[in-house]
C-alpha cells in the first residue's frame, strides 16, 4: 500500500475521517432504510385504516339496502332514518381525500360514489312516493266509504228486495275490489289487481242495471253513485299503477345497490391486494434492512479492523519500532536494526533521524574515545602546567623573596649607613685623637663605648630583620597592627632619609588579631610600602624641593573584615597601567628598580593565605592600595612555605 508523503497526523486524521465517513455512510444508509420502512409502516397503517373502512363498505351497503327495502315495503320511518345515516356515513367516507397508496383507487371510489348518489336520489324519490302511496291507499278506502254511504243513502230512500240485493252485491264487489288491491300490494299477484278491476267493472254493470230498471223494480238514479264509483275506479287504478312504478323504482335502486356492492368488492380486493403488496414490500424492506444491518455491521467491523490495521501498520508498528530503535540508540547502540521505512513522512523523518542518531552514536563513541584520550592528555598537561605553575610560582616566590631580601638588604644598608659612618668617624677621631694626643683612656673608653653602641644598634637591626622574616610556617594569631608597625619600622631609615612623613592610623580599641602566617602579611605590607617609597622618590625626582612625600597607613576593623590601606602621594600610576599592575613582571619603575612581581605576589599571597583582596586605586596624587581581609578565613591549602 502506497501513500502520498503526508504528515503523520494528517494520515491519522485521514484514516479516522475515512472510517468516520464509512460509518456515517452506513448509518445514513440504515437511517434511510429505516425511514423507508417507517414510511411504509405509516402508509400501511393508513392503508389498513382506509382498507378497514372499505371492507365495511359492503356491509354498510347491505345495511342500507335492508333499511331501504324495509322502508319501501313497510314504510318504517326508523329504517328511513337509518338508511339516511348510513348514506351520510358512506358519503363522508367516499369523499375523504385519499392520497398516496390509495390514489389508484380513486376511479373505483368515484364510481361507487356515483352509484351511491344515484341510489340516494332514488331513495329520496322513494321517500317522496311512499307517503303518496299511503295517501292513495287512504283515498282508496275513503272513496270506498263514500260509495258505501251513497248506497246506504239510496237504500234508505227506496227500499225493496231487488234493489237491496243489488246494493248488497255492489258492497260485496267493493269489498272484493279493496281486498284485491291490498292483496296485490302484498303478493304482487296481478290476478288480485285484475280481480279488483273486474269487481269494479261488474259494479258498473249492476249500476247500469239499476239505472235502467233491469235490476228489478223501478229505475234508480245512480248518477251520483256512478260518479263516486268512477272516482273509486280511478283511485284503484292509480294506486295499483303507482305501486308498480314504485316497485320499478325499487328495481332501479336494486341495480344501483348491485353496482355499489360490485365497486365496494373491487375496492376491497384492490385495497387488499395493495395492502398485501405493501406488506410484501415491507417484508422485503425489513429483510433488506436486516441484510443491510448485517452487512453494515460486518462492513463496520471490517472498516474498524482495516482502520486498526492501518493505524497499527502505519503508525503503531513504526512508532514501536522507532521507540525500540531510539531506546537502543539512547543506550548508545550502533548496530540497532532500523526499519527500511522509505516514505517521506514523519516516521520516515524519524527513521532518518534514527539513522542519523546511529551515526552520531558512532561519532560520539569516536569523540568520547578521543575525548578520553584528550582528557588523559589534558590531565597530564594540567598536571604538567600545574607543576610548571608551581615551579613558576616557586620561582616567583623565590624571586619575591629575593626581592624582599634585596629590600631588606637595602633597608639594612640604609640602617647601617649611619652607624657605619659614626663608627668610621669614631675610628677616625681616635686616630686624630692619638695624633692629637688627645687619646686618653677615657677618651678611648668613651669612643669604644660610643662605637659599641653603634655596633649594638647595628646588631639589633640585624635582629630586627631576622625577626621580620622569622622562620615559621605555622599559622598563628597575630595582630595586624603589629605586623604593619614592624614593617614600617623596617623602612624607618629609608623613610627618614627620603623625608617621607608617615601617618599610621590604627584602631587601638579594636581587636585586630587575625590568624595566619604573619610573615606573609609583612611581605605584602613591605611591598606596598616599598612601592609607595619608590613612587614618592620618583615624584621627588621630577619635582625636587617643593614636594613632601607622605605615606598614610590605615587599619580599619569592620564587623566581618579588616581593611588595610596604604596611600601615598607619589608619582601615581598611569591610567592604562592599572589593569596590568597585577600581572607578573609588569612594572612602571625604571629599569633595574623593580622586579614586576611585587604586586602579583602580594595579591597571590593575600588570596591564597588570607582569602583577602588587593586593589590599587589611582588617586589624584598617588595611589591607594586597599587590602580587604576577612576576619576568619580557611586557607586553600597549606603549601610548602618557602618563606622560611
Amino acid at each position, binding site marked *: 500500500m502506497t501513500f502520498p508523503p503526508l504528515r503523520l497526523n494528517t494520515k491519522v486524521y485521514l484514516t479516522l475521517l475515512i472510517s468516520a465517513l464509512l460509518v456515517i455512510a452506513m448509518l445514513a444508509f440504515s437511517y434511510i432504510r429505516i425511514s423507508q420502512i417507517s414510511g411504509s409502516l405509516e402508509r400501511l397503517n393508513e392503508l389498513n385504516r382506509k382498507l378497514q373502512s372499505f371492507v365495511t363498505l*359492503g*356491509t354498510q*351497503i*347491505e345495511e342500507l*339496502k335492508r333499511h331501504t327495502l324495509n322502508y319501501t315495503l313497510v314504510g318504517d*320511518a*326508523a329504517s*328511513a*332514518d337509518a338508511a*339516511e*345515516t348510513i348514506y351520510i356515513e358512506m358519503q363522508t367516507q367516499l369523499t375523504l381525500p385519499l392520497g398516496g397508496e390509495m390514489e389508484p383507487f380513486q*376511479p373505483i371510489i368515484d*364510481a361507487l360514489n356515483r352509484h351511491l348518489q*344515484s341510489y340516494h336520489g*332514488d331513495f*329520496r*324519490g322513494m*321517500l*317522496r*312516493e311512499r*307517503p*303518496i302511496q299511503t295517501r*292513495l291507499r287512504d283515498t282508496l278506502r275513503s272513496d270506498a266509504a263514500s260509495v258505501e254511504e251513497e248506497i246506504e243513502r239510496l237504500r234508505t230512500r227506496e227500499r225493496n228486495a231487488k234493489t237491496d240485493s243489488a246494493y248488497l252485491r255492489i258492497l260485496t264487489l267493493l269489498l272484493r275490489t279493496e281486498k284485491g288491491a291490498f292483496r*296485490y300490494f302484498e303478493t*304482487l*299477484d*296481478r290476478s288480485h*289487481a285484475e280481480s279488483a278491476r273486474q269487481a269494479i267493472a261488474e259494479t258498473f254493470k249492476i249500476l247500469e242495471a239499476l239505472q235502467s230498471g233491469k235490476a228489478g223494480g223501478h229505475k234508480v238514479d245512480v248518477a251520483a253513485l256512478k260518479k263516486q264509483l268512477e272516482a273509486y275506479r*280511478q283511485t284503484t*287504478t*292509480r294506486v*295499483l*299503477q*303507482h305501486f*308498480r*312504478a*314504485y*316497485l*320499478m*323504482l*325499487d*328495481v*332501479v335502486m*336494486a*341495480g*344501483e*345497490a*348491485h*353496482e355499489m*356492492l*360490485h365497486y*365496494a*368488492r373491487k375496492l*376491497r380486493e384492490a385495497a387488499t391486494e395493495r395492502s398485501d403488496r405493501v406488506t410484501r414490500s415491507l417484508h422485503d424492506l425489513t429483510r433488506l434492512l436486516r441484510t443491510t444491518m448485517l452487512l453494515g455491521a460486518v462492513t463496520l467491523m471490517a472498516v474498524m479492523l482495516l482502520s486498526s490495521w492501518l493505524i497499527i501498520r502505519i503508525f503503531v508498528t513504526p512508532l514501536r519500532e522507532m521507540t525500540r530503535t531510539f531506546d537502543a540508540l539512547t543506550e548508545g547502540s550502533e548496530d540497532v536494526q532500523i526499519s527500511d521505512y522509505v516514505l517521506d513522512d514523519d516516521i520516515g523523518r524519524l527513521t532518518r533521524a534514527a539513522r542519523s542518531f546511529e551515526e552520531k552514536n558512532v561519532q560520539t563513541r569516536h569523540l568520547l574515545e578521543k575525548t578520553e584520550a584528550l582528557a588523559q592528555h589534558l590531565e597530564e598537561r594540567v598536571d604538567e602546567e600545574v607543576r610548571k605553575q608551581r615551579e613558576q610560582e616557586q620561582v616567583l616566590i623565590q624571586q619575591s623573596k629575593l626581592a624582599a631580601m634585596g629590600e631588606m638588604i637595602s633597608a639594612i644598608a640604609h640602617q647601617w649607613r649611619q652607624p657605619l659612618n659614626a663608627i668610621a668617624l669614631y675610628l677616625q677621631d681616635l686616630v686624630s685623637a692619638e695624633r692629637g694626643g688627645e687619646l686618653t683612656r677615657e677618651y678611648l673608653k668613651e669612643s669604644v663605648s660610643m662605637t659599641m653602641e653603634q655596633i649594638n644598634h647595628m646588631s639589633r637591626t640585624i635582629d630586627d630583620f631576622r625577626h621580620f622574616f622569622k622562620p615559621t610556617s605555622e599559622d598563628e594569631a597575630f595582630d595586624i597592627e603589629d605586623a604593619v608597625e614592624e614593617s614600617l619600622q623596617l623602612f624607618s631609615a629609608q623613610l627618614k632619609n627620603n623625608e617621607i612623613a608617615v601617618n599610621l592610623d590604627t584602631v587601638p580599641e579594636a581587636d585586630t588579631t587575625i590568624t595566619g602566617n604573619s610573615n606573609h602579611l609583612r611581605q605584602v605590607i613591605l611591598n606596598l610600602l616599598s612601592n609607595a617609597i619608590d613612587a614618592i622618590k620618583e615624584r621627588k625626582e621630577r619635582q625636587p624641593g617643593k614636594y613632601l612625600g607622605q605615606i598614610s597607613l590605615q587599619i580599619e576593623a569592620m564587623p566581618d573584615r579588616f581593611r588595610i590601606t596604604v596611600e601615598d602621594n607619589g608619582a601615581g600610576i598611569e591610567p592604562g597601567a592599572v589593569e596590568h599592575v597585577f600581572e607578573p613582571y609588569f612594572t612602571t619603575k625604571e629599569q633595574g628598580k623593580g622586579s614586576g612581581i611585587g604586586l602579583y605576589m602580594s595579591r597571590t599571597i593575600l588570596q591564597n593565605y588570607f582569602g583577602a583582596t588587593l586593589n590599587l586605586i589611582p588617586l589624584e596624587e598617588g595611589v591607594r592600595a586597599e587590602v580587604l581581609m576577612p576576619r576568619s578565613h580557611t586557607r586553600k591549602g597549606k603549601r610548602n612555605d618557602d618563606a622560611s
Partner: protein
Amino acid sequence: MQEGRRAFLKQSAAAVSAFAFPAILHARNKYPTIRVLGTHVTLQEPLRERAQKELGINIEFYPGGSAEVLMKAITNPANFDLYEQWSNSTRLLWSSGAIQPIDVQRLAYWKEINALPKTGHITPEARPGAGDVPNKILYIQSDGSLGPTPTDRISFMPYVHNVDSFGYNSAIIPRGIPYETESWGWLLDEKHHGRVALVNEPTIGLFDAALAVRAAGLLTFKDIGNLTRTEIDALFEILIDYKRKGHFRGVWNSVPHSVELMARGEVSIESMFSPAVASLNGMGVPCIYAAPKEGYRAWYGVMSLSSAAEGERKDAAYAYMNWWLSGWPGAFIARQGYYISNPERSRPLMEPEEWDYWYEGKPAEHALRGTDGRVSVQPGEVRAGGSYIRRFSNIAVWNTVMPNFEYALDHWNRFVRTQPSGVRL
C-alpha cells in the same frame, strides 16, 4: 336525523300536492309554459331552446329515469303537461287516467306519420314483432280501451323510435355478420363470462334476457311478448344461475353507465342503446351495435297529453307536439341514430349523405357529425343493421308491459339483487 327526514317528507308531501317537481327557479315570462316530463333521450336542451324560440312558449323539462317519471305521471297528472317516454308506459298512464286522448285532427302532420305506429308494420311484409306493438295501444277505442282499430283519438303521438340490441367490443369479441351470426345468444356465451351487462329495466332488459335464453337454446316461449308465470320462473332460474356463477357483471341504469362499463373494460358485451354506441366509438372503443339474427327489440317513443292539461297549456302542448314532427327535430335526432315517425318531413333538412347513412343504411360518403358537432360516423361506415326499413322489418319483440309484469318484476328484482356465489361483502 329523524326530524330532518320528517321535515323532508313534509316538504316533499307539500311539493307533491302543489307540483311534485323541484321548484323552477328561473324567471317566467308572459308566454304560456308547458312542463314536459320524460327521459334524457328526448329531453335535450338544444331541442328545448329551439322549440321555445320557434314556438314562442316557455318549455320546462323534467328529465328522469323511466320508472321515476312514470310514477310521477301516474301520481298526479297536474304535475305535467306532456309526457315523453316509451310505448310500454302507455297502458299504465291510460288506465290510471293520467293522460287524455289526443285529437289527431289537431296533429298537423298526423297523415305524414308512416305505417309503423299505425299498423305495427313498417312494410306489409315486415314481421310485426311480439309484445306491445304500438298500434295495439295507439287508438282509443269507443269503449275507452286502447286498441288497434283506428280512431281520431289516440293515446300518444308517435314520434321518436328505434330498435335496440346489444353492443359488443370488437377489440375483444370478433366482429360478427349482421343478421347472420350476430345473436342474442352471445349474451350468455361462456367466453364472455363476467363481462356481460343488461339494462336494468324489467320491460326492456327482461326481453333482452329472454331473447338471449331463447337464442342460446335454453328455453322456448309460446309468446315472448307475453310470458307465462312458468316461463318467467324458468327464465329467471337460468338467469339467476348465470348471475350466481358470475356470468353477469351487472345491470346498468343509464346510458352513461353502460358507456362507462364498456369504456373501462368491465364488460365486453351488454344491452345497449344507440347513443351509447356513438359515444363509445367517439371514445375510440370499437363498439359494434349488433343486428341479431333473431331480430331486434323495438321501442316506440310516445308523447302523451296530461289529463290535467287544458286551455292555453293544452294548446301549447299541441303546438309542441306539432313542432316535433315539423322536420328539424327529426333531422336532429336522426344524427343520434333515432328515427322520427314522419321521416320525409325531416329529409330535406338532412344532407343526402346523412339520409343515406341513417335511413338508407348506405355507407357514409363522408364523415358525419353528431348533434354535438363531433364526427360520429367515419367515411365508408355502414349503419349496423342496415336501413330503416330493414331494421324495422326484423323486430323480435317490442318493449312491453306484460300481463305478468309484476310477477316478472319480482323475479327481475331478485335477479338484480343476486350476488355471485362465494363473493364476500
